[in-house]
Structures are given as C-alpha cells and as structure tokens.
C-alpha cells in the first residue's frame, strides 16, 4: 500500500514551571491530529468556493475563504487567525482535560479547561524561519493555574477565528478546531504554577 512520507508536520512542546518560574518538566512530541476541518479549509482556499463545516459549538457554518470583487460596502475578512488575546479561550492554543482519542471529525476538545482555572495569556507567533531542510512557524501560549488545586492537562488543541463581513453579509466570528492531540501522559500543573504550550508547524523538504 502506498504511504507517502509526511511533508507538513506539527510538533508540540509543553513546559511546566513553578511559581518562581523554574522549569519543572518539558515534554515534546509530534502532533498526530490535523482534523478534517484543516483539510477542508485548505481545499476551500485552493478552490475559492464555500464549504460547510462544524465550529467548536458543533454548528454547521458555511465558510467562504475569498471575497468576490465588490465596492461601495464595508469589508472585513479574517480567514483563520490563531493569535487569540489573553483570557480568550475561544481560539488560539487550547488545553483541556479530555482523554478520548482524536478522530477526524472532532470539533472541540473533549473537556476544554476553563479560563477561570487555567488562565490563558495571548497566543503569539514566537518565531519562524528556515533551518536546514525545514521551514517552520512556532506559536506559543502560556497558561497559569489560578485555581487552588493541581490541574492535569491531557489534551491540546489549536483553534482559529474566522470572520467575514461584506456589506450586510456578516459571518462570524466563528471558531474552528484545526488540531487536537491527546497526550500519552497527562501533565500536571500545580496550583499557582504555569505551563507554556508551543505548536510548531513545519515543512520538510
């Protein structure tokens, strides 16, 4: 059976630090789970026709990844933004407690961690460039355990925000899960401690 090698990969890295910022633990791995949404989104961008897929609330949304020629109206178009601001866990890098294995049709984390427990800072582009035969873009987000108990992260995700307004036709903001991973070993974040999660998207030639 023909099995092509991977050309676009995603890797994750998790760093747990104590209240003083000392590194307690670092784990990394290859993300296993581009979801069907990511493939569908690529296709709709390549063919510039609308596609319907489920947002994080499991609601079907018709997504246009293009704006036809128009004039005389306000237009704003955000295609797939992952740079969520602080305290917004609708999109960006996400963490959760769920342990169910990923499937292509997953539309959300199994059990997203609420911001009231693991406070989310902004998702940012940390770096991008070329290294040997790899090109990459790394996104990062810090979460702080603001609860009074230890929290164990079992799953990670990357969700994007979509918003399109052409005149009175307004779609979104909607939030779509593009990647979901379940960790082989849960990572415990002590009360008052923090965790940094990175997703690195790269091509290998």
């Amino acid at each position, binding site marked *: 059976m023909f099995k092509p*090698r991977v050309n676009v990969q995603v890797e994750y890295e998790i760093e747990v630090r104590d209240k003083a910022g000392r590194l307690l633990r670092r784990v990394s791995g290859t993300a296993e789970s581009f979801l069907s949404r990511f493939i569908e989104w690529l296709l709709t961008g390549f063919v510039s026709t609308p596609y319907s897929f489920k947002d994080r609330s499991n609601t079907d949304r018709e997504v246009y990844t293009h*704006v036809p020629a128009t004039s005389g109206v306000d237009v704003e178009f955000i295609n797939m933004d992952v740079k969520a601001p602080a305290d917004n866990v609708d999109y960006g890098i996400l963490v959760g407690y769920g342990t169910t294995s990923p499937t292509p049709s997953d539309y959300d984390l199994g059990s997203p961690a609420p911001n009231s427990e693991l406070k989310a800072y902004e998702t940012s582009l940390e770096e991008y460039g070329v290294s040997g035969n790899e090109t990459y873009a790394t996104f990062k987000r810090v979460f702080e355990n603001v609860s009074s108990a230890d929290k164990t992260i079992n799953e990670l995700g990357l969700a994007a925000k979509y918003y399109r307004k052409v005149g009175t036709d307004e779609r979104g903001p909607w939030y779509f899960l593009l990647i979901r991973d379940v960790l082989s070993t849960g990572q415990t974040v002590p009360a008052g401690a923090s965790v940094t999660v990175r997703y690195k998207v790269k091509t290998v030639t």
Partner: protein
Amino acid sequence: MSGLKAYVKLTARDREGRVVQQLTMESRSFLFNLIKVLRALFSAQHSNPIVLLDGSEGRFDAYCFVDGGTMSTNWWCHLMAPKEDDSFGVVVGNGTTPVAIDDYNLESKILHGEGMGRLYYWDVKSEEVVVDGNTIKFKVKRVFEERAGSSVDVKEVGLIAFHRCTDDNGDTQIKFLIARDVLTSTVTVPAQGTLLVEYEISCTV
C-alpha cells in the same frame, strides 16, 4: 507519523485514450512559501513577504479591511486556473534540478500551446474531501494535451497559487509556487496524447 502528506500521480494516455505510462510518487514538495502563507493566515496579518515566481518579493495579505466606497476582493491561495492559463494551478516542466526548500518556480516550465514542445493546459479541477477511516484527503488535478504531433517529456510538476487582495492598502495580485516535485522518472506524453496530473493531499488522525 501523522501530518499533512501529499503524493503526485501522473497518467499518460495515447490518442486512443489507452494508458501508456503511470507514475505515482511521494511528494516532498511543500515549500517555504506555504509556511509563509500559513504563518500569515494564522496571524491575520497584512503585507507578509512571499517569494514570487521571478524570485522577487511580493506581498501576501491575510487580512482584508475596507471602508465602504473602495473596491475589495480577496483570494488567498487559488489554484483553480482556467484552461489555456499556464501561469498558475497545476503546472508541468522538464527541469531536473533537485527540489530546494526555497524554490520559487519550476526550473523549466512547459508552456501552454499547440506547438512543438508545448502542452495544451486544460482547467484545474478538484475533488471533494473524502474521509476514509481516519484519513482525510482531497485532490486537485489537471489534464494536459499534446497537439503538435510530437511527444513531450515531463520531468517536474508543481502547484502555483494565485492571491489577490484589494482593500484600503491597495491592490495586490501575485502568483507564487507552493509545491514542486522532480519526478523519479520521466513521463512522456505521446504525440496527440494526454497527461493527467493529480495532487492528493491527505492527513491521518
């Protein structure tokens, strides 16, 4: 290993439609430009540098904003070239220089036309996303036709995307290479024959 994978399949047929040659190969060819596009989209940014087909730097706009009164349009990574347009979509050539991660064009593109050494470019088509167990995939494809009565050798293939953004920052129309493969063996399009080139992009959860 999971992640985004691609393979390329070429099918050459004679004038009677009989298959005379087939080649299926792993595609290793997503390039730096694709990471630049993903980085820009995930960051919802304007004016992201990208390398154009002549090696110069162009502007990729992943965010579109227009106040009423200004013309606007946005196509982010359009591959659906019409027939007789060899400037984007699935393209073929006879270059043999190995792929480099920063390639920005085919080495030697075979031009559209009906003369010797050329191929008639039909329009690019796509197939719907298919979920097969834990694998999600779609295809983009193109037929090329030899009309001069003299066979043509194909040694490289690629994907060139068209991007356009017209908004308050101006009108940007660019084309850039996102994938290139040098074939493991030459595929010959017979005189008066056809060549079908299919790119299949998939990921497995």
